[in-house]
């Protein structure tokens, strides 16, 4: 702290300035003392007036002199506050009652903490950008900054647009059939049938996937009222596991600016389950681990792994 103060601060001048202030204060109080006391007893009225004015003048002169001296010294003292990295808040370090008001140390800690936070947030943002889809990685970084208010508009896409996107995806994958319905108003629900392996119920909000449930090919996907049953889980452990992984995939494939790419990526990933019972684990080479086939599919390579065999 001594280092900080010595920069640009003339301590000698500082001490002199303080005594100059004291001098100024006492000369000012003398002026008021003089005014308070008024005219002293003198033989003649004229003599009284003369003595008072002379005394008053003297006092004003000394105020003037002390003020000038203080101004001169204040230029010598310099401007410590502007050289301090924390600007005026750095002056808190001069507070002598540190124990009662540890404001300065708290301030420094908060400053360091916020610096670190910014640094780590920067690192995390860099890493997360690497994880996103290649074709859209740049888009994400740029558009997130420049068009921060674009997201709400994608929530109100016209149903026709959603229909088009889904039917295009449906045509992309012959072994996968997608049936779109809107049992509850504008939000679409998809029933995806993948070969003779599994069925997936996908609950959409506009073009965003809200929820997904994976069931067996021979399991019932409808509730008693004839609508898609979006709540009950599969009776088979293997499909419960795949449901968990599909939910993870929803969190992975995130691209708020291009929801159609997200849906397409998710469906591409989902399609790799066509070999759910036929693909051995790419790590241990086995079909079964704890009675389950490799239920995990790598987000990029789409390779099959057991839940415990993936990195």
């Amino acid at each position: 702290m001594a280092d900080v103060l010595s920069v640009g601060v003339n301590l000698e001048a500082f001490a002199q300035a303080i005594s100059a202030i004291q001098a100024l204060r006492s000369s000012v109080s003398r002026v008021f003392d003089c005014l308070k006391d008024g005219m002293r007893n003198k033989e003649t009225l004229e003599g009284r007036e003369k003595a008072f004015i002379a005394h008053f003048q003297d006092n004003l002169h000394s105020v003037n002199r002390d003020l000038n001296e203080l101004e001169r010294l204040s230029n010598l003292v310099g401007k410590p506050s502007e050289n301090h990295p924390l600007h005026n808040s750095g002056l808190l370090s001069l507070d002598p009652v540190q124990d009662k008001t540890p404001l300065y140390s708290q301030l420094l800690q908060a400053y360091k903490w916020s610096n670190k936070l910014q640094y780590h947030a920067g690192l995390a943002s860099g890493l997360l950008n690497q994880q996103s889809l290649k074709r859209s990685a740049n888009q994400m970084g740029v558009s997130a900054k420049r068009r921060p208010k674009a997201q709400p508009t994608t929530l109100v896409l016209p149903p026709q647009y959603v229909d088009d996107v889904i039917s295009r995806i449906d045509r992309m994958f012959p072994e996968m059939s997608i049936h779109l319905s809107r049992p509850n108003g504008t939000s679409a629900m998809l029933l995806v049938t993948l070969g003779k392996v599994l069925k997936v119920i996908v609950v959409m909000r506009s073009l965003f996937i809200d929820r997904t449930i994976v069931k067996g090919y021979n399991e019932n996907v409808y509730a008693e009222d004839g609508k898609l049953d979006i709540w009950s889980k599969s009776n088979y452990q293997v499909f419960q596991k795949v449901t968990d992984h599909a939910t993870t995939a929803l969190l992975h494939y995130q691209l708020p600016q291009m929801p159609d790419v997200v849906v397409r990526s998710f469906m591409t990933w989902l399609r790799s389950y066509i070999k759910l019972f036929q693909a051995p684990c790419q790590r241990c080479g086995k079909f079964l681990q704890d009675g389950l086939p490799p239920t995990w599919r790598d987000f990029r390579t789409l390779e099959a792994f057991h839940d415990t065999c993936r990195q």
Partner: protein
Amino acid sequence: MRPFLLEGGSVSQMPVAEGKSVQQTVELLTRKLEMLGAEKQGTFCVDCETYHTAASTLGSQGQAGKLMYVMHNSEYPLSCFALFENGPCLVADTNFDVLMVKLKGFFQSAKASKIETRGTRYQYCDFLVKVGTVTMGPSARGISVEVEYGPCVVASDCWSLLLEFLQSFLGSHTPGAPTVFGNRHDAVYSPADTMVQYMELFNKIRKQQQVPVAGIR
């Protein structure tokens, strides 16, 4: 549904100690299953009765009599299965038994032909394993092992997976793929497919009936 039956012969090749009975082999198998982590889930029973075409109808058609098998499976308590060897499998409800009595003139029950397998169901993850003792009359003739992998509906899709599972409790004494796996490539498995396999297993065991059980190893 993905049942798979181990014929008695295959199981008998398990390296059990000299003189081990069918019952002891069943115990060995179930102990292995329990060690694997499989849990008991009740019992099961599959039975089969053989019917001959009655002599009176034979003459008019001038053909050799066909055998018909009428089977029940506790897994489908409301159904009755009628099968011909290499022929169609009829799935009816249990009233079919009454009908067979009325059809005495055309189909006659073969004497002492009833064969059945009874045992315990085991659940391991999504696998359902049924180890049963096959009996004809009073005597134990062999062991049936049925493995069903519920999540998969196409038999050929999960054969490798099933084989790995079978090896985990049968060791190296696992059989080749049953014919039903190769027949129809992507057909959805049905209960009738299970019954056909049980019928084939029972027929095999009937032909071995002269062989004393203790000799099957």
